């Protein structure tokens, strides 16, 4: 007896017995890596900087191996928060992509651009909703190269170059006003970089293979520091039968970064200048693994079943030692290890069905399991964890608090999701996309949330003979909130009776209303194509983020400091314009351009009641204004003094070729961002000035209110509010292809040499060296959230294919 009829039963059966496959979500923009201007710096974000409207890659730090800030239609309450980062997928499988607090090494350096085929940019809601809470702020899907037909190809590439600081003027450096002799001692022109990659690939009826290895070393401009990475990778497809294929992907990376005390950590160089740092140790080592295995079965009746398991793992460790000559007689040593692991399993069934010649459907139903497991251990000191750590754990797990500062913390999160996507295609004119996703999270008491989306795309060419496409979409996603709030948290108060007993109590009570931040997104767009010459697209989006989780301070007779609540609303909207021009295309000469610009606005739409009694009290002054506003005090009033986000940003790329010579350059720009620079001369203990800030003549009348290490109130004067607008020649390359030689030498199929420059010229009125160096838009007294100077670099390279 057949309980369930075919083929529907099989879909259902598969869904029920297994969850978790790389979703095939069509991308909005697809960037072929071979046609991009690559960067000398490592980090994949650097090669797409300025290439896509709305994708902001902010080069805030010159420290080698650091990640530039990535933002793709993302917003959060906290400008330093990594939660605005887009989801990074490798062949459709999520990876751990944010740098760990332990080593700060950028996981996007784990790959060489040579192994990547294309990067797909996904930002519209009818595509994003399929990822649910994983991708509230867009997604970048990195598709790796596969073997090309032929039994074997060997591809090699290498480049070497130098870093330098142009016109290094210590007065312009963010370390301004510190010791200038020491400044020159920290930075050094001529730090070498080199990079080598070897790929071997092939393909045939059996499938395809590609494997390779790569090495990247970069000394940067900070003396005695540097970054290195080696990786080994494999991408193979095997056709088991005509219908059944398997896919293996594996990338293993070892990365290391050495830090330096002066210049990197200690910003206020101690006088007299510390001569030698040879005993200072800051060794950062990462092991990164991204691996996946997929099976694909063509069932017939237009049905394909896929299942993919993915593993993204990073082991980060840091060993640090600061000798007594640097710390005024004290020594400091710490060792920390942070292991992050993400396991995903995605199973789906896809059904392609033609209702008629005119109406077709592409339906996918699937399930996904996502398991995050982060474990931090540290001894003597370093205590930081992405999700918030506490040194409480050591004691409840049996350490004697008096003996050592040790920490072990472990966070596990599970996400179970079911999703369906339906794409209906009517003739060549109309596409309708429907998405429904349910995410169940271990972070909340009420586990499930539902995210639907609808998108309509209409091509006017067929019916009206106008080369215009229009689209509109609406839907909902969410942002995962902080873990385990619904269970309440305990707090360690202190040791008692000779350090033998630990006193604990409630930090905050359980919050059963904990849930994800809701994101409602509306999209609209129009694309006009003028033959093969010009393509113009204008996209509008509007996102509303609601139900942020925040703390409500309790009256001090309640015995707890705060409880959690959800509320508040932020809005982010923008217009993204892309102009692709293919001006000249002939045998000997070609010229193409890409100009993109995005105008973004964000706004605090509503705030919780009695805002002053919440952890969002600092936003009281920006209600109705951007959440990225810079807020300072003047007299006894808090006011908005600027906006750390630019009004507009984008990139401009030109690609030229004359016979064998090619040249390309990328200009990035942003305007309208403000930078508030803290003053070194007006910083006061508030009590000592009787809570009355004295305004200095040459400075602004504004001040920030900080707390110093002893918890005392400090009034920090603001020296200037500057314009952070800039235009930068981010990357430029000139290459020559030896067609003649490769024609003569049979084994050689391609040979090319190139000269490439990064960050060659910056035009800005900003008084510091890099207008993007401040993550929060304010250059603080202690330079927290301010990066080291961004170097320029020039490299000479070669590419060869056998």
């Amino acid at each position, binding site marked *: 007896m057949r309980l369930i009829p075919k083929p529907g039963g099989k879909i259902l059966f598969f869904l029920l017995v297994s969850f978790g496959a790389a979703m095939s979500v069509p991308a909005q923009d697809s960037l072929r890596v071979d046609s991009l201007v690559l960067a000398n710096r490592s980090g994949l974000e650097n090669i797409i900087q300025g290439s896509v409207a709305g994708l902001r890659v902010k080069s805030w730090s010159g420290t080698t191996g650091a990640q530039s800030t990535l933002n793709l239609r993302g917003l959060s309450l906290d400008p330093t928060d990594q939660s605005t980062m887009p989801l990074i997928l490798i062949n459709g499988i999520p990876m751990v992509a944010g740098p760990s607090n332990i080593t700060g090494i950028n996981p996007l350096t784990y790959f060489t651009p040579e192994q990547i085929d294309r990067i797909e940019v996904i930002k519209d809601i009818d595509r994003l909703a399929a990822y649910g809470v994983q991708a509230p702020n867009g997604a970048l899907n990195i598709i790796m190269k596969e073997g090309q037909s032929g039994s074997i190809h060997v591809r090699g590439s290498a480049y070497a170059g130098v870093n330098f600081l142009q016109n290094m003027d210590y007065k312009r450096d963010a370390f301004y006003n510190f010791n200038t002799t020491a400044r020159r001692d920290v930075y050094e022109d001529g730090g070498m970089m080199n990079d080598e990659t070897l790929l071997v690939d092939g393909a045939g009826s059996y499938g395809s293979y590609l494997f390779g290895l790569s090495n990247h070393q970069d000394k940067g401009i900070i003396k005695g520091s540097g970054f290195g990475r080696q990786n080994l990778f494999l991408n193979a497809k095997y056709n088991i039968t005509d219908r059944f294929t398997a896919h293996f992907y594996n990338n293993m990376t070892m990365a290391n970064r050495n830090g330096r005390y002066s210049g990197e950590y200690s910003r206020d160089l101690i006088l007299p200048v510390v001569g030698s740092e040879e005993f200072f140790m800051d060794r950062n080592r990462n092991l990164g693994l991204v691996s996946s295995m997929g099976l694909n079965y063509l069932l017939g009746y237009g049905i394909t079943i896929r299942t993919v398991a993915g593993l993204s793992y990073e082991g980060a460790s840091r060993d640090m030692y600061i000798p007594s000559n640097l710390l005024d007689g004290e020594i400091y040593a710490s060792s920390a290890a942070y292991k992050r692991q993400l396991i995903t399993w995605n199973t789906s069934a896809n059904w392609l069905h033609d209702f008629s010649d005119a109406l077709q459907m592409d339906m996918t139903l699937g399930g996904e399991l996502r398991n995050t497991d982060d474990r931090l251990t540290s001894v003597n000191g370093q205590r930081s964890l992405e999700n918030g750590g*506490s040194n409480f754990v050591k004691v409840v797990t049996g350490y004697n608090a008096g003996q050592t500062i040790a920490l072990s913390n472990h966070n596990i999160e599970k996400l179970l999701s079911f999703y369906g996507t339906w794409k209906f295609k009517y003739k060549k004119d109309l596409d309708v996309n429907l998405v429904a996703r349910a995410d169940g999270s271990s972070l909340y008491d009420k586990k499930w949330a539902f995210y639907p989306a609808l998108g309509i795309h209409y091509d006017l060419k067929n019916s009206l003979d106008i080369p215009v496409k229009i689209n509109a979409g609406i839907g909902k996603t969410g942002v995962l909130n902080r873990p385990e709030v619904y269970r309440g948290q305990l707090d360690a108060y202190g040791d008692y*009776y000779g350090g033998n007993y630990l006193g604990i109590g409630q930090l905050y009570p359980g919050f059963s209303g904990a849930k994800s931040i809701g994101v409602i997104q509306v999209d609209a767009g129009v694309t006009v194509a003028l033959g093969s010459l010009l393509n113009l697209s204008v996209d509008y989006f509007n996102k509303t983020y609601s139900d942020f989780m925040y703390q409500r301070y309790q009256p001090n007779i309640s015995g707890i400091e705060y409880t959690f609540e959800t509320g508040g609303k932020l809005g982010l909207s923008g217009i993204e314009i892309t102009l692709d021009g293919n001006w000249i295309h002939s045998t000997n000469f070609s010229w193409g351009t890409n100009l993109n610009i995005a105008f973004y606005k964000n706004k605090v739409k509503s705030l919780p009641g009695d805002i002053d009694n919440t952890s969002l009290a600092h936003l009281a002054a920006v209600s109705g204004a951007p959440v990225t506003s810079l807020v300072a005090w003047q007299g006894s009033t808090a006011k908005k003094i600027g906006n750390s986000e630019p009004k507009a940003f984008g990139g401009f790329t030109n690609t030229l070729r004359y016979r064998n010579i090619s040249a390309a350059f990328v200009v990035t720009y942003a305007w309208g961002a403000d930078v508030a620079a803290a003053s070194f001369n007006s910083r006061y203990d508030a009590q000592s000035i009787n809570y009355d800030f004295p305004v200095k003549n040459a400075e602004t009348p504004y001040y920030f209110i900080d707390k110093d290490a002893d918890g005392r109130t400090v009034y920090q004067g603001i020296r200037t509010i500057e314009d952070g607008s800039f235009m930068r020649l981010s990357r430029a390359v000139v290459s020559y292809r030896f067609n003649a030689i490769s024609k003569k030498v049979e084994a050689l199929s391609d040979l090319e040499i190139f000269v490439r420059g990064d960050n060659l010229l910056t035009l800005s009125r900003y008084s510091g060296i890099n207008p993007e160096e401040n993550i929060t838009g304010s250059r603080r007294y202690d330079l927290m959230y301010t990066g080291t100077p961004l170097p320029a670099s020039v490299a000479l390279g070669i590419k060869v294919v056998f």
Partner: protein
Amino acid sequence: MTHWMKYRKLLMPGLCKQYFAVLVVMLLLGSCRKSLTVDQENNTVEEGYYNSAPRIQQAVIGGYTDLRRALFANYAWMMYGEARAGDLKVAVNYQQQVANQQLTAANENLVQLSDWGYFYDVIKDANDVLDIVDNAEEDILSTYQKNTYRGEALALKSMAYFYVARIWGEVPSAEENNFGAHLTAQQAVTQAMGYATEAQKLLPWRLLNDDGIESAALTAVRFSKTAVTSLIAQQALWLGNGQSAYDILTNTFTGSAADSLSGFGLAIGEDRRTEIPEAPLSKNVLSMPIATFNTIYPVGDTRRSSMFNVSGNSATLIVSDVSKVDLLRVNEIDLLLAEAAWRSDRLEEAKERLINASGGATEDYSTLTEETFGNALLQERQRQLVATGQRMFDLIRFDEVSTYIPVFTEADVANGAAYWPLSATSIKGNGWSQNNYWK
């Protein structure tokens, strides 16, 4: 075959399929909740944490550490007591403002001292412990542990209410049944005395350590029957009820209990809040100007040398055990008995007890009368209980504030000057208003 049967046959397979599918989906979704629950290894989550006696004891200790915060932050136990009364100096810059009664001066330490938050943290901790003990699974706690933890929680809560009532006068209740209710000082102390009386029945004379052995050192830093009895007596005397104080003291401290007596102090330890002093009794922190010293301990009083080291212009307190700060000393029991006897019209017994308690004094207490006894007792309390933080409360209780703190007139005291002002955060969000005198 009826039509119905025919339809049923036709329908059944379809229904079966649907029900089966629905059933499986339901089973799957039903199991999701379980699969989505993660047992956190780091143990910082509250849910399910209190599953053993040592963990429940951590919650009890939490009450002591919060009481320590309440009394040690900014050397509060001295600032509320001897420092404010001018008897002792604390080596911090804001002490002079406290001694000058400038309690509302713009100083962050004074603002914190005007905040009652830490005392209410103790009350919350205690109420949590009572809930935890009541809800603990069977077999986790022995009867001894159950009684002791409950008793300690009640005693801590009682002590916290007693402190806030003596420091601020009118205070809010933080009990579930009347949260936020305004309590007069009398009501608050009455409420506190109720908790202490309940605790007295539960607490042992001596506490057992983790090995189940009676520990004098542990008993000295946690509530025992002795300590809570002293507390009840203090509360009864504060309420003007000498007879109850007399009854509780004489019924509890019978001759057979003498060996088991223990004072109560707060153990020194590392606090996670770095602003809490970890060595409040370290050398040179507490001192007494030589003139004050000579006034309080006249020449010939043997306690001049047994309790102090005199050098130059100041006398520093000899601290025999720096690992704890005494709050309720064993030698106070006799003083309390003397006071209770005096307040319950037993002058002769009162004198006898005072003489017993005051070895080393130069005065002849046998000649005291009903009228002069009070001052003599107040003075002996000042001498013997120095550094326990009680001086200011004694002045209030004996109605002698304006005598010893001349900047205050009797009208000022009647207006609330003896109590502390309230910080902005203490007033905020609970409909409370500033003490009349400090407005």
